[in-house]
């Protein structure tokens, strides 16, 4: 089991060192630690998938995998000069409230870890979609050797072979390094992303708004019933939530810092990894690029837009190129798209009852998320008001726009759903889709809301 665990932790360590080099040090160190999870596992995924596509298998794949990763790390550390961290912590005074918030957060974190471990003990293979889709694909990739393309067999369409491969390849890669299958690996991958999301949220809000806001954000996420369970279910929804949050954090840091192009490059890379985690990540990539382009054009002009988007697409390039080749050469068409035709889609678009059903379910699920997290946060916002810092309010506004457009996209997907009964489609997936967006929504909320220690900010 140890080689498998090291196969996961090794790239994370390399990513941590690379981010240190890029200036994620000092006050940015906690954000660095949380970002390294996705950056490391995502880079390892790209390298391993490239090896698979190029025809490497077994020990060849292991050697190519390790050599490429070490080569990339050496090249990076050799070529990139040490950059200095430019961000400073907001000067929030330490108070008894902050200490109390830290204690409550740690208690909730321990509770979350306990529940996660309990879930893994109770269901080592994960919940339904974990073994029927994600771990099934990982087994094909690991067990089939050079016949791994069998996983796209037309007889397996029920297991959605069009779904992106970041999670299964990450699991299969660790199994390959380990030499045998163990349920600990997918559990560890799930744990890294689940608690990486919590850590990233707390670290980023702490950096941008102070420790009290950071711990409060962490408490709300850990108190959201369903988040830890969804993580321990070994689905790809929580890894996707992690990458969406990572992009949001990197872009908010860039808005605050307006410095080197490193942050948009990293945001582009993380966007590509989100697109490789679930198909919803591809919608996110389109939405985030659109919102970003419009915002920068309005506020900073064409030149700044070209500079930032150039850097963003530089980061997006490798995962996007791999994804396009996967979609064109390996994956069958998505059932949600392949089933569309004028004859079947038009009646759905003109069915008023369908709109009402979907809107009603969205409203009900949003009200029940947590449960009742949104009404609690609205009450909190009404009591405290907005923060004063304009750049943070702008970042939060952009993120809320991205989230609203994502919800609109999900609405269209349900509206045109090929399922015979859209209520069942909604009932089996909408809660997970909302939880994918939840950490990013909390990040945007805690950027926007005034701190309880700074009354009169509104």
């Amino acid at each position, binding site marked *: 089991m140890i080689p498998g665990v090291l196969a996961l932790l090794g790239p994370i360590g390399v990513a941590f060192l690379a981010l240190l080099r890029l200036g994620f040090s000092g006050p940015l160190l906690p954000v660095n630690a949380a970002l390294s999870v996705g950056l490391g596992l995502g880079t390892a995924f790209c390298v391993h998938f490239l090896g698979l596509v190029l025809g490497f298998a077994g020990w060849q794949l292991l050697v190519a995998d390790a050599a490429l990763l070490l080569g990339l790390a050496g090249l990076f550390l050799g070529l990139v000069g040490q950059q200095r961290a430019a961000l400073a912590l907001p000067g929030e005074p330490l108070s008894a*409230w902050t200490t109390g*918030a830290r204690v*409550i957060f740690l*208690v*909730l974190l321990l*509770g*979350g870890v*306990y*529940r996660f471990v*309990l*879930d893994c*003990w*109770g*269901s*080592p*293979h*994960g*919940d*339904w979609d974990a*073994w*029927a889709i994600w*771990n*099934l694909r990982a*087994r*094909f990739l690991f*067990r*089939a050797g050079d*016949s*791994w393309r*069998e*996983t796209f*067999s037309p*007889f*397996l369409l*029920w*297991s959605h072979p069009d779904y992106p491969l970041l999670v299964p390849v990450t699991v299969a890669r660790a199994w390959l390094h380990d030499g045998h299958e163990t349920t600990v690996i997918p559990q560890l991958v799930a744990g890294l992303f689940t608690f990486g999301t919590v850590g990233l949220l707390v670290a980023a809000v702490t950096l941008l708004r102070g420790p*009290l806001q950071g711990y*409060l954000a962490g*408490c*709300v996420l*850990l*108190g*959201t*019933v369903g988040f*830890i*369970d969804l993580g321990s*279910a070994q689905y790809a929804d929580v890894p996707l939530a992690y990458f969406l949050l990572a992009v949001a954090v990197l872009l908010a840091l860039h808005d605050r810092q307006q410095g080197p192009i490193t942050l948009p490059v990293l945001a582009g890379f993380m966007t590509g990894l989100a697109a490789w985690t679930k198909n919803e990540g591809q919608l996110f990539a389109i939405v985030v690029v659109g919102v970003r382009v419009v915002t920068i054009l309005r506020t900073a002009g064409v030149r700044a837009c070209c500079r930032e988007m150039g850097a963003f697409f530089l980061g997006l390039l490798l995962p996007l190129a791999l994804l396009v080749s996967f979609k064109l050469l390996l994956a069958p068409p998505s059932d949600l798209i392949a089933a569309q035709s004028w004859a079947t889609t038009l009646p759905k678009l003109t069915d008023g009852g369908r709109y009402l059903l979907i809107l009603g379910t969205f409203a009900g699920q949003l009200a029940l998320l*947590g449960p*009742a*997290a949104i009404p*609690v*946060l609205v*009450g*909190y916002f009404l*009591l405290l008001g907005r923060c004063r810092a304009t750049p943070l309010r702008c970042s939060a506004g952009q993120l809320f726009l991205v989230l609203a457009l994502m919800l609109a996209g999900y609405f269209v997907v349900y509206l045109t759903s090929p399922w015979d009964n859209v209520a069942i489609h909604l009932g089996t997936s909408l809660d997970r889709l909302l939880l994918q967006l939840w950490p990013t929504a909390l990040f945007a909320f805690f950027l926007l809301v005034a701190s*309880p220690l700074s009354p009169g900010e509104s």
Partner: protein
Amino acid sequence: MLLLFGFGLVGALRLSADVRPFQADYRDREELARVEERFTLLHAALPQRGTVSFLPGRRDRPMWYRCQYVLAPLVLAEDGPYPLAIGLFDQPPEVVLNGAGQRLRLASDLDGVQLFRPEDDQ
């Protein structure tokens, strides 16, 4: 602030009070374990990879998916034309037809999961 701490603590308490992970039917745990165990015997009679026909007599889709998970990377082709077939019949017939119309005879029945082979092979 107390509102948010209260929200977090109530959520954590709800999770702590949830006893579902201790239950045998939690996330299909026992069923998957049973299928893994049942197929240990069948594995030896099956090829390591490739495709076999799958005849889900009782149209039990969850069982079909569990079988696929356990037998991967062997592909189970529903009503496929392949000469080796796995069946899920409550009352297994002695002879079945695969997707190509080939007659297959029952070779073994392991706790509700059957293996069929071409008549000529037996």
